[in-house]
Every structure is written in structure tokens, then in C-alpha cells.
């Protein structure tokens, strides 16, 4: 007798192998998953946009002969000494503690060679970083770890961190295994204990207070330093408007793909908006206040290529910031360490347990032996190369669209491949002159 045919085993989309593995991990450990990096889920992004290029109605510039300027000045609103950058790509804030001293040095070296700025993070300013960064932005965070007036004065700009894209509304946690004597000393805490970074600033509670806080910082620094306000991608229209009201020279807007050193996976994946969805409302807020280009907008969260840079600028940003991409350029998640990633139960490209301090690439660690694996000079050169390539790519696109400055890129240069991207970027769906939300249809 023939055997009755059976349907093949069917996996649940809802209860996928990945979801089930997380349920088993939670059941075994009793604690949520903590990891580094930004959102890994697929969200509408710059990949869903295309440039139209020049045609009968647009006149392109010659690729290698005609100038396409990339310079940007940040902090022109109130600061006596705005920051002048050669390229519109900056290095985002990442802490010493989360990163090794060598990694911070490499970021400073690479950024300086490329003519741009780098940024401190939670944990204060290190000599390696200040010494190797021609232009250094000093973060002013809720924890105030390492905060002091001397470093405030020797910074080139000050970034008040209200939130970040990976965890808008959340604080941070540097786990005890990364708290060496040096890290602990800078943070005024004992060695080896978990160090919490508060989610709110200790001495102000809203934009009215923040305005006075900014007054204090400007008075301490002789009104010289540009004051940035960094917000996560939560309510970009109102956040940017209120940041302007509080007196920001520059607003840094970080979407959900922006990385963190360590946060709950549920937070990273389920709180905040994609970078693409944040830019137009932010620009609208600046335009409504008559402050577009007077208060500069720096966008971060998932910037990887010169095309991403060009698209962010076309949507109205003045510059972008990179974090995760900069770490990859230094050597993070390099397949050459695959055997060691496997020992940690992961694989190159997926390694995100940055908080555990066992990074084979020697970047997100305080282990002296692992740290030695990163040569700050060589890594700095790689970062410079990467920044240069992104800049050239951005210029290539801008010239093709007929612009002699990358800031002349505009939404009219773009179309979208998906309805979602069209709605978020407010540019027409490819092949149409319409996007969702546009009136008249």
C-alpha cells in the first residue's frame, strides 16, 4: 500500500527559528538580551531612493574637471568660532570605555587626515583623542562622567546629548568587565562594577531649562564653541524645533539604525524611527522657523556610502555622522577574525556583543592583549581612505546632478523605489510625480 503523502514540515513565520531561539535564551537566562550596534531589522532606508541625474532639463558637471565643493561650516548661529570641515562627514560620539584608547586615537587620526571632526562619548575626553583630533566635539551627557571645565574649554564644539537613535528615551550601561582602573578613574567609580548612564540630565528637565544650561556653557567657554544638541529619531519635527528654541547652533539627528555600545535588543529594535523617516520633518521644522542652513542639521544612523551621504544632503541635511561604519573601516567584524568570532558563538558581520569586551578586532575592548591588535596609525589611514572614498562618491553624484557644491543637492534630484520610502522622503515614487501624502490626487 502506498504511503500517504505528507506536506513538508512548515516553519511558522510568527514563531521563526530566530524568535524561538530568543525565547529559549530568555527562559534559560532570565535576562533580556543586551548588545551593541543599531537596529538590524530591515527598514526603509537610503537604498530605497535613487538619483535622477542630469538630462535635457539639467546640465551635469564634468566628473574630474569641474569643481564640486564639499566644505561645511557648523555653528554659524551664535558661536564665535564655528567649525570648518573639509567634508560633510563627521565621526559620531563613541565613548572611551566602550572603545579602546587605540580605537579612539585611530578615529582622531583618520578624521583629522580627512579634514573632519571626531566626537568624544560617555566617559570623558582622553589625551589620545584630543591629541590626535584637530577638531574634537566634546559630548555633554546625562552621566557627566569625566566632565570638567578644562576639557570643555579645549573642545572645538560641545554636543549636548538628549538622546540617540538606538535608544531614544534610554540611558546606557557599561558592564563591569570593561571597567578597568583607567576607565573607572575617569568616571569616579569603583573598578569592575556596572556603570549606568542616566537617561535624563541631572540638572535640567526641558527645553526652557536647557536654554539656561546652554547660556551657562556659553558663559564658561566665552561664547566661542558651537553648541550641538543631539536627539534620537523620536519626534523629529518637535525635537528639532525645541532644540532651536533652546539655542542650538547645530542639531544632530540620529535615526534608529544608529549604534550604541550596549542596550537591550528590544529597545534597539522597537523604539525610534528609521533615519529616512526623520530627515524631512526635521528640515521642515528648520524651514518653518526660518533657520534652515542657519542651524545646521547633522544626520546619522546607517550612513555607509557616498550615496547615503548625498541622499541625506539632498533631503536637507548639512552634514552626516558615522559611527558603526567608522568602526568597520577600522577593522570591526573583519572576516580575518572568523575563527575567533566562531569561538564567541557568532560570525564576522554579526558580532555585536561589544559590551562583553572580548572583541577579536581589539576595538570594543579594554583587554590589553586584544587592544594591541589595533594599530592606531594603520587603522587611522583606513578611516581616512574610507572617508575620502565616500566624499568622492558623493561628489560624483552631485556633479551628475549638475551641482558645484554637495549642499546644492535637493529633493528634486531624487525618486523613490517604494511607497514607504516615497512617503518618508517625500519624493516621487519612481515613474510617477506622486508620493503618499501629496495633495491633489
Amino acid at each position, binding site marked *: 500500500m502506498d504511503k500517504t503523502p505528507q506536506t513538508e514540515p512548515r516553519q511558522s513565520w510568527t514563531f521563526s527559528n530566530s524568535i524561538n531561539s530568543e525565547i529559549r535564551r530568555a527562559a534559560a*537566562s*532570565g*535576562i533580556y538580551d543586551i548588545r551593541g550596534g543599531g537596529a538590524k531589522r530591515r527598514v526603509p532606508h537610503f537604498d530605497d531612493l535613487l538619483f535622477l541625474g542630469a538630462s535635457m532639463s539639467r546640465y551635469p558637471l564634468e566628473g574630474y574637471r569641474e569643481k564640486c565643493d564639499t566644505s561645511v561650516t557648523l555653528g554659524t548661529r551664535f558661536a564665535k568660532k564655528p567649525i570648518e570641515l573639509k567634508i560633510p562627514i563627521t565621526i559620531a560620539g563613541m565613548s572611551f570605555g566602550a572603545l579602546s584608547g587605540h580605537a579612539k586615537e585611530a578615529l582622531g587620526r583618520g578624521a583629522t587626515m580627512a579634514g573632519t571632526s571626531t566626537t568624544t562619548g560617555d566617559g570623558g575626553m582622553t589625551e589620545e583623542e584630543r591629541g590626535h583630533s584637530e577638531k574634537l566635539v566634546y559630548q555633554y551627557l546625562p*552621566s*557627566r562622567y569625566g*566632565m*570638567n*571645565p*578644562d576639557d*570643555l574649554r579645549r573642545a572645538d564644539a560641545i554636543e549636548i546629548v538628549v538622546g540617540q537613535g538606538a535608544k531614544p528615551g534610554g540611558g546606557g*550601561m557599561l*558592564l*563591569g568587565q570593561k571597567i578597568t582602573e583607567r576607565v573607572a578613574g575617569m*568616571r*569616579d*567609580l*569603583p573598578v*569592575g*562594577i*556596572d556603570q*549606568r548612564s*542616566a537617561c535624563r540630565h*541631572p*540638572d*535640567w528637565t526641558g527645553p526652557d*531649562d536647557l536654554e*539656561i*544650561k546652554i*547660556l*551657562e556653557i556659553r*558663559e*564658561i*567657554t*566665552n*561664547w566661542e564653541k558651537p553648541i550641538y544638541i543631539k536627539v534620537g529619531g523620536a519626534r523629529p519635527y518637535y525635537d528639532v524645533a525645541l532644540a532651536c528654541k533652546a539655542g542650538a547652533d547645530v542639531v544632530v539627528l540620529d535615526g534608529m539604525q544608529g549604534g550604541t555600545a550596549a542596550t537591550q535588543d528590544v529597545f534597539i529594535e522597537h523604539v525610534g524611527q528609521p533615519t529616512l523617516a526623520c530627515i524631512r520633518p526635521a528640515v521642515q521644522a528648520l524651514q518653518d522657523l526660518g533657520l534652515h542652513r542657519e542651524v545646521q542639521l547633522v544626520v546619522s544612523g546607517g550612513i555607509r556610502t557616498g550615496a547615503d551621504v548625498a541622499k541625506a544632503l539632498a533631503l536637507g541635511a548639512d552634514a552626516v555622522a558615522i559611527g558603526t561604519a567608522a568602526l568597520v573601516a577600522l577593522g570591526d567584524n573583519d572576516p580575518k577574525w572568523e575563527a575567533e568570532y566562531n569561538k564567541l558563538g557568532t560570525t564576522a558581520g554579526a558580532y555585536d556583543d561589544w559590551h562583553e569586551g572580548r572583541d577579536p578586532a581589539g576595538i570594543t575592548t579594554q583587554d590589553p592583549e586584544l587592544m594591541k591588535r589595533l594599530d592606531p596609525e594603520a587603522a587611522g589611514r583606513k578611516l581616512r581612505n574610507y572617508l575620502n572614498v565616500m566624499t568622492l562618491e558623493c561628489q560624483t553624484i552631485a556633479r551628475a546632478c549638475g551641482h558645484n557644491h554637495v549642499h546644492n543637492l535637493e529633493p528634486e534630484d531624487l525618486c523613490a523605489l517604494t511607497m514607504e520610502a516615497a512617503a518618508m522622503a517625500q519624493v516621487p515614487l519612481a515613474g510617477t510625480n506622486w508620493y503618499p501624502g501629496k495633495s491633489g490626487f
Partner: protein
Amino acid sequence: MTTTLDKTVLDMTEMELREVNTTLQAAAKAKANEAFVITNPRGSHAMAVGLDGPINVTIKGSTGYYCAGMNKEATVTVEGSAGPGVAENMMSGTVTIEGDASQYAGATGHGGLLNIKGNASSRCGISMKGIDIVVHGNIGHMSAFMAQKGNLVVLGNAGDALGDSLYEARLFVRGTVKSLGADCIEKEMRPEHIEILKELLEKAGADARPEEFKRYGSARKLYNFNIDHADEY
């Protein structure tokens, strides 16, 4: 700006805040131990901030937010009350408030002495990192939240949730404590604590004996994440 009896008077009906702070900051930097009196402060914010050197500043009246913020070495006296964040992130020196202090007094301070002759509002000493704070009156709720280092001395009473999520700061309270925050417990007052307290009371000119105080500190149960303590977080 006028000079009388070795004191330079800065009248804020005649000078803008920027000019006042520029004058004080330059004098502090010169390290000449000059003395200044500020009149008519009218609750101005960010007064006498970022002073970096030995200088004596007396403010005749009440101040707004962040008076004496990030102070180093300077001696600042407010002959009135102080608004939120007085002596925030102070590094060294002495700041004295003759009246009351509003929220976040001494927030994130790294060093020096903040001497409040009246009461202090909520979150006094929040995230303090080495500063000494003496409050002659009472303090409000959530004081010494996440306090890392230094000493908070309260001659009166403390409000709710004192020392919540405390690290290594020492808290001394003479009166009652309405409630203790997560991970904050009463601790034994050992001879070394009596000595520390005695010295601080003397420096602050406080009329109290160390033996009258109780000491509070961290139970250190939240120092490394433990799921069994999840209800505490």
C-alpha cells in the same frame, strides 16, 4: 565697576552678565586673590560660572540657575537664595549660600565645599562625584540620586528616596529620613566617619556634633546586574 576697600563692585543694573563673568573669569585666571562684590543680581542665571583660580566673590542678593557652575578654586558667597543647579559640576573651592538652594544643588560636583545655610530642594547632590555638601536645614526628595563619591551632610531632615541607586558617596543625616531609595541603607558610624564629619562640620561652621548623625551608604546590591534583584531596578 567701582572699587572700594579692596573690593571691586560689579553692579548688574549697569553691567550685562557677559561683562560680569568676563571680569570675574579674567581675575580668577590672574590668580591675584582679588575680591568682588556683585550688587543687584536680580536672580540672573549663570552668574560667576567657570571661575578658574583663587578669587573671592560675594553676591548681594538671590541668583538664578547654575550660579558658580564648574567652579575651581574660587570662593563664592550668595547673600540670598540660589536657583537650580547651584555649583553644578564644581571642581574645587567653596560656594556658600546664606539662604535656601533650589533643585540639583551641587549636581555632579567633583570637589570643593558647597555650604548651604538654609534648606535644599529635591535632588541635592544628584550624581555627585567627590564634592562635599553641607546643608544646615532640610533636603528634598531624591537627594544623592546615583551619587558616586563625596559627602552629603544634612543637619535637618531628608525627603523621600534618599540615596537612590547610590554608589560610594557617604550620606550623613542628623534628623529624620522620610524614606531610603533603592540600594541605600543605614550603615555603622565608625571612627573614621566621625572624623570626616567633624572636619566638614567645622569647615561649614555648623553647630552640631558628629555623634548626632546617622550614616547612610550603598548596599552595593545593584553594582552588577542580577536578575534576582530585578524588583529593585
